[in-house]
């Protein structure tokens, strides 16, 4: 596995603190290093009051403008950066080697369009609003993997090289359909 990889975690405009906090679990941090990641960019959606990091892990926290950076010491070669939102969301996707996202259609499509490996984490607290339907379908079609907050480790160790590129849609398809329905194209 190549080193120096970058991970982008995004929750869009939703509240999904469970996912944000899960990233800083000791087991997840160690797994990320093992998988070759040295930088994790986290888009939190909400203002984080506190970053929960195990007291045994030596680290320093820097705050600068609207972002917070955490650097670890003692052999854990990993930097975490927290931002609430990004104006240039696409740029963050382009920089990443892997994206972890909430199940929103907009975020998923944005990542798939840039042909980046995607792991969707289902927010089980929103189970009744059909969040998982799309993720299940896109996993079935081989475009992404999905998991829950609890089995994030399993999700991260999936074989992302096996994912297929999401096809580009014909941007005029709907326009032509509309013209046909409304009588502009007979």
């Amino acid at each position, binding site marked *: 596995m190549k080193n120096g990889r970058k991970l982008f975690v995004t929750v869009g405009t939703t509240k999904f603190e469970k996912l944000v906090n899960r990233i800083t679990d000791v087991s997840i941090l160690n797994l990320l290093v093992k998988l070759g990641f040295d930088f994790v960019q986290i888009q939190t959606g909400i203002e984080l009051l506190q970053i929960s990091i195990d007291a045994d892990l030596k680290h320093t926290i820097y705050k600068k403008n609207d972002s917070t950076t955490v650097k670890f010491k003692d052999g854990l070669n990993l930097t975490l950066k927290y931002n609430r939102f990004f104006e240039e969301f696409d740029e963050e996707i382009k920089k990443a080697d892997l994206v972890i996202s909430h199940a*929103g259609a907009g975020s998923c499509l944005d990542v798939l369009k840039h042909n980046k490996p995607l792991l969707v984490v289902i927010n089980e607290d929103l189970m009744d609003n059909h969040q998982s339907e799309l993720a299940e*379908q896109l996993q079935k079609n081989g475009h992404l993997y999905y998991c829950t907050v609890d089995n994030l480790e399993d999700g991260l160790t999936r074989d992302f090289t096996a994912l297929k590129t999401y096809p580009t*849609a014909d941007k005029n*398809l709907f326009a032509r359909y509309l013209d046909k*329905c*409304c009588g502009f194209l007979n």
Partner: protein
Amino acid sequence: MDQLQFEVILLLLLAVVARLAYMIHKITTGSNLYAPKRSAPCKTAICIGSGGHTTEMLKLIENISFQHYNPRYYFISSSDKTSLRKVTDFESDKSFAINKDYFICYIPRSRAVNQSYISSVFTTLISVFYSFPHFLKIRPDMLLCNGPGTCIPLCIISFVLKCCFICNTRIIFIESFCRTKSFSLTGKILIYIADNFLVQWPYLKIKLKRSEYIGQLL
């Protein structure tokens, strides 16, 4: 004289009921898919919901002809500032001074996520009450919606007006990209009144024969 008035009203009511039955039959059998050829611009009403629905709708209509579909009336929940900004950005990006003929119509939200069905019937009625004058004034040729709660009252109004011979609004419904296996509540209602019912996943086409699947839209 009273007898005559009564009979006229009864006759009109009968005509409306007959038209209602005829419309539902025509729509549910899928025999009203395409309008006759037209060259005059199509007055378009677009239902803007919240969050994901808004982004999806704007992506869908990104390449439609603004000469054909004008003016455009965007119906937005009064509290939804984010969607309002997305719509105005979209229009100013696309219009490049050809057509700046779009309008924003504010309506109260008919159903919040997780609101109970019974209370949403009530809020929907309030929404119908507020949107009715807008709609009567505009009388759009076409209504586009893709699933947010705000579109149910608008579709009901336009369908009722159509049954009363007041306007002839074509309702085009696009089921959300997120729906791969089941229909949304809006979809389940619009099965009976949307002239065109477009789905984005083939499985839904199997579930509802009269729906249309034309390929990957997004």
